[in-house]
C-alpha cells in the first residue's frame, strides 16, 4: 500500500512512478506536472524506473490559478 496525494492506494508490488500516474489516468507525458516521493522531488527522467516501496508517500502536483 502506498499513498498518492494523501489517499491510500493498493498496488501490485513495487509499482513505478509511471505506473502510478497511468493508473490514475494521468498521461506521464503531460506538461506542467511534477512528482514528489517521501518529500523529495522525483525528476521526470526516473518515473519509468523508480519503484515505490510499501508506505511510500507520493505527491503529484500541477499549476493552478493562484497568487
Amino acid at each position: 500500500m502506498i499513498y498518492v496525494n494523501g489517499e491510500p492506494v493498493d498496488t501490485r508490488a513495487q509499482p513505478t512512478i509511471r505506473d502510478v500516474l497511468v493508473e490514475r489516468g494521468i498521461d506521464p507525458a503531460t506538461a506542467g506536472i511534477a512528482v514528489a516521493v517521501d518529500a523529495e522531488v522525483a525528476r521526470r527522467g526516473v518515473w519509468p524506473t523508480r519503484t515505490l516501496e510499501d508506505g511510500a508517500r507520493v505527491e503529484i502536483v500541477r499549476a493552478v490559478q493562484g497568487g
Partner: protein
Amino acid sequence: MSTQPQDNGRTASPPLQIAGRTFSSRLLLGTGGFTRMQTLDAAIEASETELVTVAMRRIDASAEGSLLDVIRNRGVDVLPNTAGCFTARDAVLTAQLAREALGTDWVKLEVIGDERTLLPDAPELLVAAEQLVDEGFVVLPYTSDDPVLARRLEDVGCAAVMPLGSPIGSGQGIANPANLTLIVEAAGVPVILDAGVGTASDAALAIELGCDAVLCASAISRATDPVAMAHAIRHAVLAGLLARDAGRIPRRTHARASSPLVGMPEFAE
C-alpha cells in the same frame, strides 16, 4: 494599440530589470480568483502584463489543463508561488516541484505565519530564501513592509523584494507609506508592491513612492469587471511612473496662486 510603450518611452526610468531580464510592463498579475478562464485571458491582455503567478496544488482527475495554455498563448511567463506554505521546508519543496513542473527557476516565495492575516513569517522566509538562492533559484519573496527584513532578503541574494501594502486581498492599499519609502531608499534590487492594492490609485501611489512594479491579484480578479480593472490598473501604473519621473510639486501648508497677483483691474465705486 496601446500608448503604454510610447508613454513608457516618455519616462526617464530605464525599463524594469529583474535578474537580468528586462520587462516593459511593471504590472504582475496573480491568476487566483478569476471565475472563468476566459476572463483571466482577457485580463492578461488588458493588463499588458508579462509575468503571471500560479500556485502548485495536487492534480485531480477533473484537471482541465487550460491554465498554462491560456498563459502561454498570451506569450507571458509563469511565476509559480509557494502560497499556503507555513515552513521553509514546505516552501523549498514546493519551489522545487514548480521548477520541475514548469521548467522555470523563478519563484515567488511565500512563507505564511498566520492563516487569518496571511502575513509572512520573517525567520522562516529568510531561511527558505537563502536555501533557494543557494539552489540557483531566482527568488522573489513576498515580505512584510519591514525595511530590515527586506534588506536581509536582498543580502541573501533575492532578485527582488515584494513587500505588502496591506494584507492579501484586503484592498486596504498602502497602510504604511513611510515603511515602503524606507524599503525603496535602501533597496539595491527591484521593489514590487505585493498585496493590498484595492483600486487604481493605490497602484499609482505605489509607483510614485518608488516601487518598481506592482502585483495585483484580487484587486483585478475579484473586481465586478476584472477586465476593466485590469485596464484601470495598467493605466494607473503608467500614470504613477510618468508622475514620479515628471517630478511632482512639493507639498505646501498654505496656498500658492496659479493666477497672476498683479495687473488686477480696479473697479471704482
